[in-house]
């Protein structure tokens, strides 16, 4: 199972980097989403997987039995997913604003804040 997830992470990262190398903001953004999900899966996988043994404390006991699944990576992933969602929502709106205000999604043409020399003098 770990091997399969590791391969998935690798493929996600590869696809994400391919998308992020494009000169188009929207594709870059999709790449970013993919790579942040790959990071989440990475945390999940590196926390080691235990199937069928939920980390529940039996009645009367003070601690879960040894050998149960580690709940911490899931808590970390949950936090990261929530944060990632917020950031993605923001970036999506920003992209929309960039498209309406700057009239393009081509990153090469986004030179309003850093005009080229000849535009600066004009």
């Amino acid at each position, binding site marked *: 199972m770990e091997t399969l997830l590791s391969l998935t992470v690798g493929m996600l990262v590869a696809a994400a980097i391919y998308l*992020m190398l494009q000169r188009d*903001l929207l594709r*870059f*953004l999709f790449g*970013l989403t993919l*790579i*942040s999900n*790959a*990071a*989440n899966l*990475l*945390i*999940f*996988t*590196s*926390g*080691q997987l235990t199937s069928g043994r939920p980390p529940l404390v039996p009645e009367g006991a003070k601690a879960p039995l040894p050998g149960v699944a580690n709940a*911490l*990576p899931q808590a*970390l992933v949950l*936090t*990261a997913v929530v*944060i990632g969602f*917020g*950031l993605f929502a*923001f*970036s999506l709106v*920003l*992209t929309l*604003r*960039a498209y309406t*205000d*700057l009239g393009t999604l081509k*990153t090469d043409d*986004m*030179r*309003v*804040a*850093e005009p080229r020399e000849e535009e600066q003098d004009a």
Partner: protein
Amino acid sequence: MIWILVFPLMIPFVTAVLSFLYRDRELGRWIAVSGSALAVLAALALMKQVLSVDVVAGQMGEWAAPFGITLVADRLSAIMVLLTAISGLAVTLYATAEIDQTLENLGFHAILQILLGGVTGAFLTGDLFNLYVWFEVMLISSFGLLILGGERRQIDGAVKYVTLNLVSTVLFLSGIGLLYGVTGTLNMADLRGAVAASDRQGVLTVISVFFLIAFCMKAAAFPLFSWLPASYHTPTFAVSAIFAGLLTKVGVYSLLRLFTLIFDNEDSFAQDILIWVAVLTMVTGVLGALAQTEVRRILSYQIISSIGFLLLGLAIGTPLALAGAIFYLMHNIIVKVLLFLVAGVMERLSGGSDLRFTGGLYKSAPLLAVLFLIPAFSLAGFPPLSGFWAKVLLVKATLDVQAWVVAGVALAVGLLTIYSMTTIWAEAFWKAHPDGREPVVDDLGPDKVGMLTPIVALCGLSLILGFFPQPFITLAEAAAAQLLDPSAYLAAVLGETAP
């Protein structure tokens, strides 16, 4: 005991809520100012406590380390928290005069306070994942401040700032995941032991590079700095100033913390890279500054150049070098905030921030000229201003390890910094205004007090650092000693379990 750690964190968030509730009234603005003043007091109290007991640590929710989230302040953290609070107060006060009601209605002061809270949290946390969360708090509020107002060039700058910062966030998060996989802990004090005891040093070196790249990107080190000069000149001057003072420094702080506490190998792979990263960062920064004609873009490249000096201190890693880096941090945060605030006044008076279309400020506004000269020559490293002592310590440390080339480059960069600062001086202050205008400070009208008070106060601080450097250098040396020998830190966080 624990409250002293929680106050510097809680005050900005409470202030944020209150000033947001009253954002459409004058009251909201003054809530923000008084909240920032309280934060300075809380930071001073923390500093006092840290000076008397060395390290203050507290476990949130009484969950003992390494299971709970630890807040911990050693000398470096306390210094950084205090500098954050001081810059926060200066910028909030400046913003009351600079920002118009439209931006305040959008919650400018609330977002600024959340940013300050996030930065403070990053300095105080003792848990790696919690550091990530504070980075996100800081990041999302900086996004908000950057685009507030929604001008075209702000959107353009924000696209680059947001996308590249998110990439570094992903790297940081992946590093955390992998490190947890190898060591099974995220508490920074606990990680030190776990990393040293691990038999998978090769993997750990790779993981340390994840953190190195992520934080170098946040710190705007070569070659990952392009987001900074693309965006820092687009928002209001108050926002530029707080970004310039604090955000990149959080990256530097994290590097200092991680590469002294956790990845602390003698023959560290990171240190060999860092020294060249540092050299290239200071050189590209200063060369970039020379190519620009817009004041804030010049200053943005100067930020990058000073990040190089800070990284140099970490890369050399001797007690003197670290002390130099910490003293440089104190000097640089104050001076950078100051320069951007002065740039704001310059723009307001002369009607533009491009050097080619300004001038004549020396003749008509001599007070402003003095207020610019102090931070500018301090940054350039003129004795006896604060930047001089910082550079003396760093260059001395470089010579001590016989890195002659590096020391030579550092001195040459200092020379070029002087050149770049005198360019601003010659163009904006010395030459006559191209339109024949003679702007005077009184042109600021009712905003005069609000804009000039923080500038004068920070100039005073910078001068104190320069004329009476010894107590601050002693403090920096003590902070560096704590970084190099974290036994007090480990004992405070882990209690009896410390080795």
